[in-house]
């Protein structure tokens, strides 16, 4: 089936299967920043924006994004790089596999919350799992980035 969708500000028409999930559609079209790691909507690695709000692309049928707007990290290179500089200056990307999804959620949080407290930051990002860093370095990076030290 065909869907028309705006991917990173570009209108495209894609053929998708009825039972195809967005993460697989995006990867098959070369948006390889979107990672898949759990199959059960638990890890947050596949986070992209649907109409500017973060969603898990492993849990959205591609058919349902017809007419909608999707943003991946490839679509926000400047903002992503800006935060990635802070994250990597802290060493908190480690293996990097969870970073794109994490960054998409951090950028969404920045748009959504004004001067969040530490508790609010942790709560907002809690769905983004990371097995390398133990989260402390990520928290330091987010606080530095938001200027909420």
């Amino acid at each position: 089936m065909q869907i028309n969708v705006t991917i990173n500000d570009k209108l495209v028409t894609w053929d998708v299967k009825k039972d195809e999930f967005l993460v697989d559609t995006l990867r098959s079209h070369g948006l390889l920043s979107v990672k898949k790691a759990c199959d059960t909507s638990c890890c947050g690695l596949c986070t992209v924006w649907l109409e500017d709000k973060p969603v898990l692309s492993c849990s959205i049928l591609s058919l349902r994004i017809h007419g909608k707007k999707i943003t991946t990290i490839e679509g926000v290179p400047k903002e992503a790089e800006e935060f990635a500089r802070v994250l990597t200056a802290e060493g908190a990307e480690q293996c990097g596999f969870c970073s794109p999804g994490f960054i998409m959620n951090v950028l969404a949080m920045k748009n959504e919350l004004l001067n969040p407290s530490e508790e609010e930051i942790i709560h907002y990002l809690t769905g983004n799992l990371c097995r390398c860093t133990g989260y402390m370095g990520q928290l330091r990076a987010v606080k530095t980035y938001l200027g909420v030290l």
Partner: protein
Amino acid sequence: MKKIGMKSVGQSIRKIDGMAIATGKPVYTEDIAMNNALVVKILRSPHAFAKINSIDLSRAEKVEGVECILTYKDVPAERFTLAGQSYPEPSPYDRLILDKIVRYVGDEVAIIAAVDERTALLAMKKIKVDYEVWEPVLDFEKALGNSTVVHPEEDLSCNFDIGLHKEKNIASSFKEVVGDVEEEFRRCYEVVEDVYYPQAQAHAMMETYRAYTYLDHTGRLVVVSSTQIPFHVRRQLARALQIPSSKVRVIKPRIGGGFGGKQTSAVEGFAAIVTLKTGKPAIIIYDRKETFSCTTSRHAMRLKVKLGADQDGIIRAIDMQVLSDTGAYGEHAATVLGCVGHYTLPLYNKARAVRITGNAVYTNKMPAGAFRGYGATQGTFALESTVNKLAERLKMDPTEVRLKNISKEGETFLTGQGVLLGSSSLDRCIEKGKELIGWKEKFPRREIGQNKVRAVGMAITMQGSGIANIGTASVEIRLNDDGNFTLLSGATDMGHGCDTILTQMAAEILEIPMDNIIFVAGDTDTSPYDPGSYASSTTYVAGTATVKAAKDLKNKILEQGAKLLGVSLHEAELNGLAVRTINGDQEISLVKLAELTILGAGKLQLTSYATHGSEVSPPPYVAGFAEVEVDQETGKVELIDYVAVVDCGTVINPNLARMQAEGGIAQGIGMALYEEVHYNDLGKMETNSFMQYKIPCRKDVGKVHIAFEESFEPTGPFGAKSIGEVVANTPSPAIAHAVYNAVGVRVKHLPITPEKVFLGMQKL
């Protein structure tokens, strides 16, 4: 923590691959695989133990788009091990790519390759397998001498004696006794003993296991894999597939975490055999369920520990009896078992007698394998918990018992055969940790109202730095025609940052910016040999090789520079990308020097290489302190604060070291409080997704504080030791200790769940 006088070493330098991986550039295995690769899927055994009578492929093979389906009849009959260890591996050759006997739920039965995943899965459903189901042995405490023999086959072999008795389900056994243990216990003022059950833990790295394979322009097999051990994979595949290893190339791209899991080759063979049979590229990607249930986990163990001390609290006798569950195959069985004592007993060298005995047994469950900590984690939980119990009996502060008993820098230890312990600041780590956690005010417990109580606990640990006399690493560095450098290494960065660390070291010696070094690694065709990233080796072993090679190259550059400047060697120095005379009169840039040596008349490309292996494995140390809050109504444990003070020798990159430590502590917190690989009564793993298997999320780790108390290890590069594994060991015993101090319940069977704490409080 900036190092005076050093420009690269000791600096918190960003990982050289950091920006690319953080922003999602396509640099991981799946990202760079060919689009036309056949998709490989595995049909797995639903039974814990069975013999395959027959497999009917007729319906499956008719599915359009199926390229090949392989069964045990299609694979070489030579057994091998998947353990990533230097040859000759101390692990039994007890595997085939596919076997007629299946030994756990999830064991491989058939390999299906098709044009896409959908087709492969459809074909899989159409395969009919007739099994003769056998009685499995699932309880590792009943495996020894059980009537069920997990490996009845005749052709299982070992490279040398590892104490394997397959008819008794013993994959490995050993005994080490120094002194008269019973006599020493009789002389002791206080003797304590207990039994501990550290559980199987899943690695749960974010990037699941995956590899893709193809034949190159000369017909050689190329394997691109998310692995910690490219050179071992090459050797294993040559044996498993019965092809010359010269026909195999293994490439490691960026890796999404490993933690020891990718020190056992889970997937490469399945894709490789498809490519060999079909001539076509193939890709295999394990989903999360397969990653949980069809790879490896940490070895579950039972440890009986007995400690004796004199009136002054000096530990005089240690007895440990270890039973380790290696599951269906024996990867890492012997070595993990050995490391239980190897990485715990040297902590307390005032003992006059030590005995450690152990068996690793086969069961019909997913195999255990390498996992960060590698036996030290389990041993530390048991030994440190017993030391805490001893301190209480002696009515002494547990930190004081440590300070009285720990081995000091340069001392020997009873089971060490005269080997000297390396640098140590463990005493300072303990003192610093006490200060940071507020031990004096908080030990042992404080009521804080509303039925809640807060308490602190502690533990210490050690690991090694590489494997003495076995682990070697080679490095080559060359001056390129443009005046830049290429550093070739076999080290395997899996996210922890060793590509950066080694570049920092080379830059420091060559006195050049890191940007002038091209770091190349992870390709068995071009990299010098390195066993891979495991056994806390890279900084210490590959780092020393890098320093040696860089020093050698620096001398060669100075020689050539002095010659070209017409001065003697001692009048020349290297800095600022040029060779200069010390008086500053003349200089020749590296660009010019490279031009004159390599191009045209010079005919001399300056290169250097070094192979390093250490005769010792100096331990890094950690003192870990936990503060917990326990709800006395529910038994819920909340981790408030965790302090880990680390002695990893010189810190090469403070940011990356801190991240290793924080991440290791978090993994240890998971083991202490949340994680457990669990099977049902039929041997099927129940914890095969993040829904059932909980790893810590950012709300579960409390606050983790890392501090470094540097020592200087003379055998290490710039005084460095290791850090990767030692950081995983203290949370279980320290948190268990804190929980005991809070509510008087000793949880000896990890993890420490609210249920266990509550039932313990009720004395149920």
